[in-house]
C-alpha cells in the first residue's frame, strides 16, 4: 500500500538494492564461471597423455652389475588396484599394457633394439598393412620403416634376450632367448588411445645412449608375450595402466580434487611385492595452474565489484537519506501519537526495509543474467550453470548490508527530537561544517587510503582503496561546494549578476548539490579507473604477446641451413620487407646469454618491439665492415713465404716444425675448411706451401693460422705473398686486411706492412699456444652486438664474449643496448647475421626461424613452398594472434573485462542519483523558480538558471573524479594481476592509458552533463505559477 503511494522511490530503492545484491552475487558466480572456463580450456588444450593418468610398475635394479632371476612386474590389473577408486571414477576405462626394452640377437651394432609393447586393444588403433595382429606369445607386428630398414617381413623370426635365469645349484645364470615372429606390418592410426606414444620415427636411427646400437620402431606384441610362463621376463619390463580422463564429466572441482589426489600419489609412491609403482600425469600442474589463476581472479573481481557495490551502497544511503528526510512529518506524527522512537523506527523500517529486501531477488536474477551473458559472450567453454554455497553467502551479505544501511538511515531520522521533526524545513547547513558521520567516513576512508598508498596495506581492504579515496575526495568536495557556492552566489548577486547569482545560490541551497558532487566524483573516479585498468591490462597483454611471439608469424625451420633459408626468402621477398631469417643460439643453461643473429634492416621492420625498439642509428652500428672477402676458386692452392725466420721450439729446446694453414669458407654452403698448407721446419729464404682444397665452387679466405705442439713456442716472421690457384694469383696484402691476435698468455700473431701492397709481413710470438690464428678483416674480430640485460662477468668495458653461431666463444663489443629482444630471454645479444656467419658454421643446436611481417596465410604458404624448394621444412609455427589468445584466455584477462561493465554501471548509477535528487527536491526548486517567474524573470532566463544550477556540480564532480580515478589507478594497478603467469621478459607498463581516461571522462561529462541539462529544463518547465498557489494551500 505504502509502496504504491511512492512508486518511483520504491523503484529506485529496489533498483539500488538489486544492484548491490547483483554486485555481491555476481562475484562468486563469475568467479565460478571463470574457473569452469579455465578448467575447460586447460583440459581441452592438454594432450591426453598429460590429462590422463598412467601408472607403471617395475622392479628397479638394486645394485650389482648383472640382473637375473627378476620376477615379472605385477599385472596391470593389480597396478590399477593401487589407484584409489575415487580417483578412478574421473577416468574412462583403463588401458592395460606392458613395455620392455629388447635387442635383436646377437646385439651387434647392426642389430636393432626396440621397445616391445602390448596395449589392450592395440589392433583397433592400427592399420595393418600386411599380416595379422599378434595373438600368441612371441608374435609381433613391425612398422613399415622396419621392413625397409631391417628387411623384416611377415614370417621373419629372430631372437631377443630375456632376463637370464639362475642356474640350478647356484652356477652361472642361463641366458634365455625369446623367439619373436613377425606376423604383420602396421601403420599407427593417431588417436588419444596412444596417450602420445609414437610407435614410429626411430627406425634406422642410432641410439644416442651407449652402446649406440641401431633403433627400430616399436614392436607391438600380444599380452601373452609378457604373461606366458614359458617366456622369461624382459629387460626393463614394466606393466602399465593408462586411464584417459573423462573430459566431459570432469568439472573444475574434480580437476582440483584429481590434482590433489595425484599429488598425494606422486609424493607417496606405493609398491607391489617390491615393484615400485610410479604415476605420470600432468593434472597436478594443471590443477595448480587453475588454482593460481583463480587466486588472481579473486583480486581483480572483488576489486571491481566491491567498488561498484560501494558506489551502489553510497547511493542507496543517499537515496535513503533523501527518502527518510521526506518522511520526517510522518515520523513526527508517529512520535506525536505516542509511538516513541521505536514506533517511529518501525513505521519507517516497515516501509523501507521490505522495499530494499525486495530488490534481493531481482538482484540475484540480474547476477544470474550477467553471468549467463559472460558465459555466452566472454568466457569460452560450455560448463554447466551452478548455484553454490558462496552465492548464498553473497546474498546473505547483501541482505545484511541492505538491512544495515536501511536501519541506519531510519534510526538517523527517528532519533531526532519531535520538535526538530515538526519543523517544516529541516535545518540545513550552508556554511562549512562537518557532521560526525561524514567526519568518521572521511577519516576512516582517508586513513585506509593513506596506509595503502604508503605500502602498509594489502588484502581485501586494499582493493577498495580507489573507491575509498573517491569517497573521501567526493565528501570533502561536497562539503566545500555548498559554502563556496553560497559565497560566490552572494557576490554575484551583489555585483548585479542576478541570473548567475540566483543559479549558484540555488545550487548552494539545494541539499542535492552535495549529493551530486559526491556521487559524480565517485562514479567518474570508478569509471576512469575501470577504463584505465581495462586498457592498461589490454595493452600489457598485447605487449607481452608481441614480446613472446617476436613477430606476427614466426616459423621455426628444421636444420641449420641458413643459407638455404636465405635463398628461399630471397625468392619470396627480395627486399626483406615481409620475411627475414633469424638464428638463435641455444644456451647451455638458463642463465647463459643467448645470441640472436638477424639481418638488422629487415629485423627492425618485421620484429615487434613493444614499447619501441632501438633507433635506426643504433641498428646501423651492427652493419658489416666495408671490407671485401678474399675470394678464390680452384681445387689447389700454392703459397710462397719469403724471408721466413719462423721457428718453433719444444719445451726441452728441440726444434719443432710450424704448420702453416688457412681457413676457408665455402661460399655456397657456408662450410668452413681448416686446411694445413704445409710445415715450416726452420727459417728459410723461401718456403713453398701448397694443398688441395674443395673450392671449385668458390671459397673465401677467412683466416691464416700457425700450429705447433702444445707448450712449444713459436717466433719469427715471414713475408706472405700471393696465393695462387691455377692461373690466378690472389694477393693477400696489404696488412690492413688482417685482424691480428694478441693475448698475454698465449702470445700474438700480427700482420705488418710488407714491401708492396700485395704482401704483408707475418709476425708471430707464441708462448705455448698450439695454434695462433688471425682472421681476414671481412671476418669480424669482434662482433658488434646490441645487448639486452647486463654484460656477463669478466667483461671489460664494452668488450665481452658471446656464444657464436658455431657454439664457440666469440669476442664481441657492445655497440648499443636494447631493452628487450623480441621472443628472446632477458640476457640476449643481437648480432648481424651477415657478420656472425662469416667464417663460421652454424652449430647443430642453433635454431633457425623465419619471421613474417603479417599473418597472411598466402605469405606463409609462399614461404613454406620456397623453403621446400630449398629442401628446408617448416616446423613449428607461432602466430601472434595465438599467443595473444593464450594471454586473453586467462582469469586475469576475464576479470579485467568486468571493468567495462563497472564503468558503464557507475555512470548510470550517477545518472540515477541526478534523477532521484531532482525528484526529491523538485517541489521547492520549482516553487523557487515559479517565484522568480512571478517576479518577472523571463522564461528563458529561468530555463538557463535551472540548467546552470546543476551543471557546475556535475562538472566539478567529473573533474575531481577523473583526477581521483587516475590516482586510484596508480595506487591499485600494481596489485592487479594482468597475466596468468608473469612473462619471462617483463613488458610491464602501468602508465596511464590516456585515451581510455579521456573517453571515460568525456562519457561521464556527456552522460551526466546531458542528464543535468535535461533535468534542469524539466524543472524549469514545471515551474508554473500554479505551483505557488499549491504551496499556499
Amino acid at each position, binding site marked *: 500500500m505504502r509502496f*504504491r503511494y*511512492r512508486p518511483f522511490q520504491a523503484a529506485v530503492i529496489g533498483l539500488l538494492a538489486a544492484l548491490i545484491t547483483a554486485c555481491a552475487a555476481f562475484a562468486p558466480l563469475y568467479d565460478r564461471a571463470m574457473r569452469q572456463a579455465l578448467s575447460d580450456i586447460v583440459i581441452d588444450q592438454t594432450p591426453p597423455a598429460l590429462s590422463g593418468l598412467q601408472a607403471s610398475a617395475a622392479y628397479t635394479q638394486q645394485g650389482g652389475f648383472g640382473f637375473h632371476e627378476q620376477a615379472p612386474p605385477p599385472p596391470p590389473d593389480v597396478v590399477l588396484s593401487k589407484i584409489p577408486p575415487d580417483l578412478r571414477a574421473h577416468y574412462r576405462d583403463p588401458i592395460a599394457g606392458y613395455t620392455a626394452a629388447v635387442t635383436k640377437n646377437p646385439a651387434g651394432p647392426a642389430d636393432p633394439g626396440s621397445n616391445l609393447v602390448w596395449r589392450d586393444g592395440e589392433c583397433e588403433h592400427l592399420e595393418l598393412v600386411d599380416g595379422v595382429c599378434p595373438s600368441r606369445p612371441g608374435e609381433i607386428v613391425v612398422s613399415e620403416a622396419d621392413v625397409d630398414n631391417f628387411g623384416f617381413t611377415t614370417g621373419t623370426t629372430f631372437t631377443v634376450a630375456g632376463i637370464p635365469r639362475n642356474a640350478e645349484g647356484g652356477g652361472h645364470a642361463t641366458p634365455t632367448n625369446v623367439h619373436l615372429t613377425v606376423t604383420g606390418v602396421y601403420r599407427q592410426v593417431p588417436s588419444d588411445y596412444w596417450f602420445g606414444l609414437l610407435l614410429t620415427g626411430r627406425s634406422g636411427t642410432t641410439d644416442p645412449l651407449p652402446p649406440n646400437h641401431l633403433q627400430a620402431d616399436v614392436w607391438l606384441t600380444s599380452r601373452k608375450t609378457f604373461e606366458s610362463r614359458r617366456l622369461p621376463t624382459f629387460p626393463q619390463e614394466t606393466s602399465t595402466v593408462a586411464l584417459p580422463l573423462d573430459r566431459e564429466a570432469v568439472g573444475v572441482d574434480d580437476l582440483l580434487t584429481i590434482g590433489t589426489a595425484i599429488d598425494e600419489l606422486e609424493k607417496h609412491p606405493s609398491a607391489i611385492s617390491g615393484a615400485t609403482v610410479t604415476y605420470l600425469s600432468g593434472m597436478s600442474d594443471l590443477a595448480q595452474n587453475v588454482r593460481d589463476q583463480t587466486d588472481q581472479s579473486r583480486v581483480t573481481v572483488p576489486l571491481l565489484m566491491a567498488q561498484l557495490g560501494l558506489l551502489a551502497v553510497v547511493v542507496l544511503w543517499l537515496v535513503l537519506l533523501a527518502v527518510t528526510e521526506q518522511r520526517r*512529518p*510522518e515520523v513526527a*506524527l508517529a512520535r*506525536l*501519537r505516542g509511538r516513541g522512537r521505536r514506533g517511529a523506527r518501525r513505521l519507517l523500517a516497515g516501509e523501507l526495509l521490505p522495499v530494499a529486501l525486495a530488490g534481493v531477488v531481482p538482484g540475484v536474477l540480474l547476477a544470474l543474467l550477467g553471468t549467463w551473458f559472460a558465459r555466452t559472450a566472454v568466457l569460452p567453454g560450455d560448463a554447466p550453470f551452478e548455484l553454490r554455497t558462496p552465492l548464498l553467502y553473497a546474498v546473505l551479505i547483501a541482505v545484511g548490508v541492505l538491512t544495515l544501511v536501511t536501519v541506519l538511515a531510519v534510526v538517523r531520522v527517528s532519533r531526532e527530537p519531535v520538535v526538530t521533526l*515538526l519543523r517544516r524545513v529541516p535545518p540545513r547547513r550552508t556554511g562549512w561544517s562537518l557532521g560526525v558521520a561524514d567526519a568518521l567516513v572521511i577519516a576512516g576512508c582517508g586513513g585506509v587510503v593513506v596506509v595503502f598508498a604508503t605500502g602498509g596495506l594489502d588484502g581485501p581492504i586494499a582493493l577498495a582503496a580507489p573507491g575509498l579515496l573517491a569517497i573521501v575526495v567526493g565528501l570533502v568536495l561536497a562539503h566545500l561546494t555548498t559554502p563556496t557556492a553560497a559565497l560566490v552566489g552572494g557576490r554575484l548577486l551583489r555585483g548585479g549578476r542576478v541570473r548567475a547569482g540566483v543559479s549558484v545560490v540555488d545550487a548552494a541551497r539545494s541539499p542535492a548539490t552535495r549529493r551530486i558532487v559526491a556521487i559524480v566524483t565517485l562514479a567518474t573516479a570508478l569509471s576512469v579507473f575501470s577504463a584505465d585498468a581495462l586498457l592498461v591490462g589490454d595493452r600489457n597483454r598485447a605487449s607481452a604477446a608481441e614480446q613472446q611471439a617476436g613477430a606476427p608469424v614466426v616459423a621455426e625451420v628444421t636444420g641449420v641451413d641458413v643459407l638455404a633459408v636465405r635463398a628461399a626468402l630471397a625468392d619470396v621477398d627480395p627486399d626483406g620487407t615481409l620475411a627475414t631469417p633469424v638464428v638463435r643460439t641455444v644456451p647451455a643453461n638458463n642463465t647463459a646469454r643467448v645470441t640472436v643473429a638477424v639481418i638488422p634492416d629487415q629485423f627492425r621492420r618485421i620484429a615487434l618491439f613493444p614499447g619501441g625498439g632501438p633507433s635506426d642509428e643504433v641498428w646501423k652500428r651492427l652493419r658489416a665492415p666495408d671490407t671485401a672477402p678474399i675470394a678464390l676458386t680452384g681445387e689447389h692452392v700454392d703459397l710462397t713465404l719469403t724471408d721466413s725466420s719462423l721457428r718453433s721450439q719444444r719445451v726441452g729446446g728441440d726444434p719443432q716444425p710450424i704448420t702453416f694453414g688457412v681457413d676457408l669458407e665455402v661460399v655456397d654452403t657456408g662450410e668452413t675448411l681448416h686446411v694445413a698448407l704445409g710445415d715450416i721446419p726452420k727459417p728459410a729464404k723461401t718456403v713453398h706451401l701448397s694443398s688441395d682444397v674443395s673450392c671449385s665452387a668458390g671459397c673465401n679466405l677467412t683466416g691464416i693460422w700457425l700450429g705447433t705442439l702444445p707448450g712449444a713456442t713459436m717466433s719469427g716472421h715471414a713475408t706472405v705473398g700471393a696465393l695462387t690457384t691455377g692461373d690466378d694469383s690472389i694477393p693477400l696484402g696489404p696488412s690492413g686486411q688482417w685482424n691480428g691476435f694478441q693475448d698475454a698468455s698465449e702470445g700474438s700473431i700480427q700482420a705488418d706492412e710488407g714491401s708492396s701492397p700485395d704482401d704483408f709481413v707475418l709476425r708471430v710470438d707464441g708462448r705455448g699456444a698450439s695454434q695462433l690464428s688471425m682472421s681476414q678483416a671481412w671476418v669480424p674480430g669482434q662482433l658488434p652486438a646490441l645487448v639486452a640485460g647486463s654484460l656477463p662477468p669478466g667483461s671489460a668495458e664494452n668488450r665481452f664474449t658471446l656464444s657464436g653461431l658455431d657454439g664457440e666463444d666469440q669476442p664481441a663489443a657492445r655497440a648499443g643496448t636494447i631493452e628487450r629482444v623480441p621472443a628472446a630471454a632477458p640476457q640476449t645479444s643481437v648480432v648481424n647475421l651477415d657478420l656472425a656467419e662469416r667464417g663460421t658454421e652454424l652449430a647443430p643446436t642453433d635454431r633457425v626461424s623465419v619471421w613474417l611481417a603479417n599473418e597472411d596465410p598466402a605469405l606463409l604458404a609462399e614461404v613454406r613452398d620456397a623453403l621446400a624448394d630449398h629442401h628446408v621444412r617448416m616446423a613449428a609455427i607461432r602466430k601472434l594472434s595465438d599467443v595473444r589468445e593464450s594471454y586473453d584466455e586467462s582469469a586475469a584477462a576475464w576479470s579485467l573485462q568486468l571493468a567495462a561493465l563497472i564503468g558503464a554501471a557507475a555512470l548510470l548509477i550517477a545518472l540515477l542519483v541526478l534523477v532521484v535528487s531532482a525528484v526529491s527536491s523538485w517541489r521547492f526548486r520549482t516553487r523557487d523558480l515559479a517565484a522568480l517567474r512571478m517576479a518577472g524573470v523571463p522564461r528563458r532566463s529561468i530555463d538557463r538558471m535551472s540548467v546552470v544550477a546543476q551543471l557546475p556540480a556535475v562538472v566539478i564532480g567529473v573533474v575531481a573524479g577523473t583526477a581521483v580515478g587516475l590516482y586510484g589507478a596508480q595506487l591499485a594497478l600494481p596489485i592487479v594481476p594482468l597475466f596468468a603467469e608473469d612473462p619471462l621478459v617483463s613488458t610491464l607498463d602501468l602508465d596511464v592509458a590516456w585515451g581510455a581516461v579521456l573517453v571515460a571522462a568525456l562519457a561521464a561529462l556527456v552522460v551526466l552533463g546531458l542528464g543535468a541539462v535535461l533535468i534542469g529544463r524539466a524543472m524549469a518547465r514545471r515551474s508554473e505559477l500554479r505551483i505557488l498557489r499549491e504551496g499556499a*494551500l
Partner: protein
Amino acid sequence: MTVTSAVTTTGMRVSTSRLVHIYRSEGHEVAALSGVDLDVPAGGMVGLLGPSGAGKSTLLNLLAGVFRPSAGKIFVGGLELSAASDRQLDGMRAQDVSLMLQGAHRNLLPYYTPYENVRFAQGAARRAGKDVPDPDEVLDQVGLADDAHEPLASLTPGHLQLAALAVAMAPRPGLLLADEPTSQLDHPARDRVLERMSVVNRELGTTVVLVTHDPDVAAYLPRTITIRDGRVGGEGRSGEEYAVITPDGFLPLPLHIREELAPGTLVRFHRNEDGDFVLLTEEGHHHG
C-alpha cells in the same frame, strides 16, 4: 448532533505556572514565553489568541510535551511535564493528549485512508492497554463515516481537517490541543470543524485548547486567552474581554488603554460608590 460512545473520556485539567520558554535563533536568545500562568479546568474549551509570534503555538507545543519549558511548571492532568521523562511523555501523547498540527495534511499519513489513519493513531494507546473505540465510531463522531475508506487525495479540505480531528480524537484523549484547526478552510467547513470540536468537548468531556487567529472562531469559544509578548495579555469570557492580574500582582493593560496612556503615566485605582474599581491618572482622567 450528539456523540455517543462506549468509551468514556475524562477531560484533563491544564495549568501552567510562571512558564518561561526561551529558544535560540541565529545566535540570539528569544523569550517566546515569559511567565505564563494559565489554568484550564477539565472539560474546558479555551482558545489561545494573539498576534503572530506572541507564543501561542509555543505554548501549545509545551502543553503537548513537544518542547521542554525553560522555567516554570506545566501540569497536564496529574503529570508535571517539565519533570516527565521521555517515556512518560510518549505515554501521555499515546493516551491522553493529542496535538492537531496546523494543516490537515501534517496530521495524516498520506498513504492511509481516514480509517487507517485513525487506527494508526490508536496503536500506541492500544498497546498501552487503553480501551479505544472502533475507528469507524471515531470517524462517525466527526462526521466522516462515509469517507472512512476513501484515499486522502479525494477528500475536500474540510473533510481532511475532520479526518485530522478524528485522528487526534482516536485514542480518546483527555486533552485536545489544536493549532489553527480552521485555517485554510472556507466558512462552512470551518463551522463544521468547530461544531465537531465543540461536540467532542461537550459530549466526551475532552478538554480542548486551540490556537486561532480568526475572530469568528474566538467568538464561538466560551473562553479565550490572549497571549501577548509572551504573557497572558487578557481573557475573554462569553464575548467580554478582561485583563488578567498575574499571580505577582501585575496587570497587563488592554491594548486600547495602552495606546492612550504613555509609558511613565501615573495611575491609581479608585473604588466608586457602586463598588467598582476606577483607574485614575495623575491629571484626574479616569478609566472605568
